[in-house]
C-alpha cells in the first residue's frame, strides 16, 4: 500500500517536473522579452519621428518655395522696372536733340535738295515702320506654376482618371 502511494507520489512529481520543463522550454527568456519590447518601441518611435520628419520637411520645403516665389516675383518686378528705366534712358540718349548734337559734332550737316540724288533700287519699297510687337495670335496664357505643384494627390488622381477616360475608347495607348 505504502509502496503504491510512493509510486503515485513519484509519478505525480515527475509529471510536475515534466510540465515545468515544458513551460521552461516554451517561455521567452526575460531579457529577450525586454529586448523585443524595446525594439518595438524604437520601431514605433522611429516610424512616428519619420512621419513627423517628412511632414516637417515637406512643410519647410513648401515654406521655402513660397518665400523663393515671393523673392523671385520681387526680383521680376525689379527687373521690369529696370528694363523700363533703361529703355527710357536709351531713348534719352538717342533723342532728336542728342542725335543732332552728335551728328553736328561728327561734322554732319542737314541735307539740302541739291545734295540728293534719287535712284531706283529694285525691290525697295520705301522705309517700313519698325514692328513693335507681333500681330495678334490665339495663344492662351498659361500659369507659370505647373498644376502638379499645387494639386493634391486626390486632384492629381482624379485628373489622371479623367484624362484616361477622355482618351478614344478609354483605352490605354
Amino acid at each position, binding site marked *: 500500500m505504502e509502496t503504491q502511494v510512493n509510486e503515485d507520489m513519484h509519478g505525480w512529481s515527475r509529471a510536475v517536473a515534466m510540465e515545468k520543463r515544458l513551460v521552461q522550454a516554451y517561455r521567452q527568456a526575460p531579457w529577450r522579452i525586454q529586448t523585443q519590447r524595446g525594439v518595438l518601441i524604437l520601431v514605433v518611435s522611429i516610424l512616428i519621428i519619420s512621419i513627423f520628419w517628412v511632414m516637417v520637411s515637406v512643410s519647410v520645403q513648401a515654406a521655402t518655395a513660397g518665400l523663393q*516665389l515671393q523673392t523671385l516675383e520681387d526680383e521680376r518686378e525689379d527687373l521690369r522696372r529696370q528694363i523700363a528705366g533703361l529703355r527710357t534712358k536709351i531713348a534719352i540718349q538717342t533723342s532728336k536733340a542728342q542725335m543732332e548734337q552728335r551728328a553736328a559734332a561728327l561734322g554732319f550737316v542737314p541735307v539740302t535738295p541739291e545734295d540728293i540724288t534719287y535712284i531706283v533700287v529694285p525691290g525697295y519699297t520705301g522705309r517700313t515702320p*519698325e514692328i513693335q510687337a507681333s500681330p495678334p495670335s490665339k495663344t492662351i496664357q498659361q500659369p507659370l506654376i505647373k498644376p502638379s505643384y499645387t494639386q493634391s494627390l486626390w486632384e492629381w488622381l482624379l485628373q489622371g482618371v479623367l484624362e484616361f477616360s477622355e482618351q478614344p475608347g478609354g483605352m490605354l495607348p
Partner: protein
Amino acid sequence: MSKISPISRYTFIGGALTLVGLLIFVWMIQIQTSESAEDLRAMGQNYTYILKTIFPERGNIYDRWGHLLAGNVEVYEIGVDLPSMKDPKTIAITLAEVAGLDYGKVYGELTKEEDPDRPRRYVVLANDLTPEMIDQIKAQKEQLDAQINLETNARKRAALPSLEGLLWSPRLQRSYPEGTLGASILGFYSYKDPNEAKGYFGVEGEYDDLLAGQPVQILVPTDPYLIGESPSIPPGVSLVLTIDREIQAMTERVLDEAVADNDAESGTIIIMDPRNGEILAMATTPRLDPNEYWMYEEIFPNPIPFNRAVGQTYEPGSVFKVLTVAAGIDAGIVTPDTPFLDTGVINVGGIPIYNWNRGAWGPQTVTGCMQHSLNVCLAWIAQEMGPTTFYTYLQRFGIGHLTGVDLAGEVNYPLSVAGDPNWYPANLGTNSFGQGVATTPIQMITSISAVANKEGKMMAPHVLKAVIENGEQYNNPPQVIGTPISAETARTVTHMLAESLEGESSEALVEGYRVAGKTGTGEIPGPGGYLSNLTNASFVGWGPVDDPQFIVYVWLEKPTTSPWGSVVAAPVFREVVENLVILLDLPPDSVRQQLASQQGISAR
C-alpha cells in the same frame, strides 16, 4: 531599513511626466477653445495678409518709327521710420549731399515735435530719387553700419553717425525723353502723387484708361505656407502714333521761327496724309515740357488752350473758300471756267460785301476768283447755290461738328444754318469766304482733305496708328467719315488751286513740286466788331498734285509784320514742304515721273 523598489520609482517618474504632458495637452485644448481664442484668431487674421495695390506700368508711347516719346523711369521714394531713427542729423546731411535736399527742411521735419494725438510713424522726405542716388545712400549706410558693428563700447557705439531708420522704395515715374517735342500731341501725366495721377490733354488724356491699365489690389500672405503665385498684372497698353519724330521736330522749328519772325501771338501747323487721315506732325505754340507739367498754369494762363490745333476755334477767312468752291462745282453751279464779272460789291441779305482790297476785278473765271481771293465772287457762288445747298455741303464737310480726332480737348463752334434763330441772310455771303463761321485748324484740314486726296473722301483725322497689348500689336485702320464731294470735283478743285497758285506766283510755290493751296486772312471779331488791325493768317496746301501725299495747314495768330496770309503764312507752307519732301523721301515731280517710267520699263 525598507528598500524602495526601482520599478515603483520609475513608475512614479513616468506617471508624473505623463501627468505633466496630459496637463499641457488639456491646457492647449483649453486655450484653443477659450473665448479669447476667437479674438486672438481674429487679431492674427489682420497680420496674415497685407493688402497691396499694384499699379501696372503705364504704357509707352512711340512715334511711327518706334522712337520712344513717353516712357517710364525708375525712381525711389525715400522716407524715415521715426521709431527706429537714431541720428536725424546724419540723415539730413546725407540727403542734402546726395540728393540735394534742403538740410534745414529735412532736419526740421525729422525733429518736429510730435502731436500726441496724431503720432507720426513714417515721414516721406522725397519721391523722385534716382537709382544712382540710392546706390550712394546704400553704400554710405553700409559703411556706417560696419563702423557701428566694429565698435564694442556701447556708449561710443551710440554716439557714432547712423542712417538707421532711413527707408526707400522703388516705383516707376513717367518720363518724356524728347522734352517738348510733340508735347501738344502727347499731353502730360501728373505723376507726382501715384494715387491721384492722371493723363491730361493730348494722347495722355484721350487714352488715359488704356495707358494706365487696371490697378489691382491683392492680399499678399505673410505666412510663407500661404504664398502662391501672384496674379500677373499686365502693363498698360502701349501706343504707336502716326507722328513722325523728324517731321514733328522740323515743323516745330519752322513754326517757332515763323512766330518769332512775324511777331505773331501764336502759331499752329498740322501736316496730315490726306489719303488716310494720319497726322504726321502737329505743332502749336506755346508748348510745355511734360517732364515739368506743374508749369502748366504758368504757360497756359486762362483762356489759352493746351493745343490750339484742336482746342481753339477761329474765323479762318479765305481758306474756307476751298469748301465753297468745291461745293459750287460739285453742285453743278459753277466750273473752273465759269465767267464772273466782278464789280467789287455784292449785296447779300441786305448787306454789301466787298473784296479784300475793296476793288473791282472785272471779268474773271472761277479760277481767277480763287487766284485773287475775291469775296464778291464767292458770295455770288453761295448765293447761286442757295442757303439750303450751301449749308448742306458745309455740314457734309463736318463744319460745326467735332472731327473726333483722338486728342483730348477738341472743341467746336456750332454752325448756324438757314432757319436758326441766330442766322441772318447776310451770313450766306460772309460764310462763303470764311467770316462769321468758326472752326478749328483740325476741322479745316479734315474738311479740305476730301479735296486733297482727289477722291472726295473725308478721312477721320487720327494720331493712333496701333496699340500694343500683351505683346501683340493691333493696327488702327483708317476710316472714311464722309464723302462730301465727288472724286471728279476733288480733282478739279485741286488742279484749279494749283493753277491759281501758279497764276499769282505765290510765295507758297515749291521748286520741283506742283502744289495746290489757298491763302486765308481772317478778321478777328471783338466786342465792338472786327478788330481792323489784327488778323488770323492761314494757308492750306497739298501736293504733289498728281499724287497727293501731304496736306499742310498753317495758322499764324495776329501777326504784326503783315496781316495777309499770302505774305506771312504762304512762305511758312513753302518752308515746311521743302523740308517735308526730304523727310518723306519724295523726289521732285520730274524725277518721280522719270523713275516711275524706269520702273515701268524694268517691270516689263
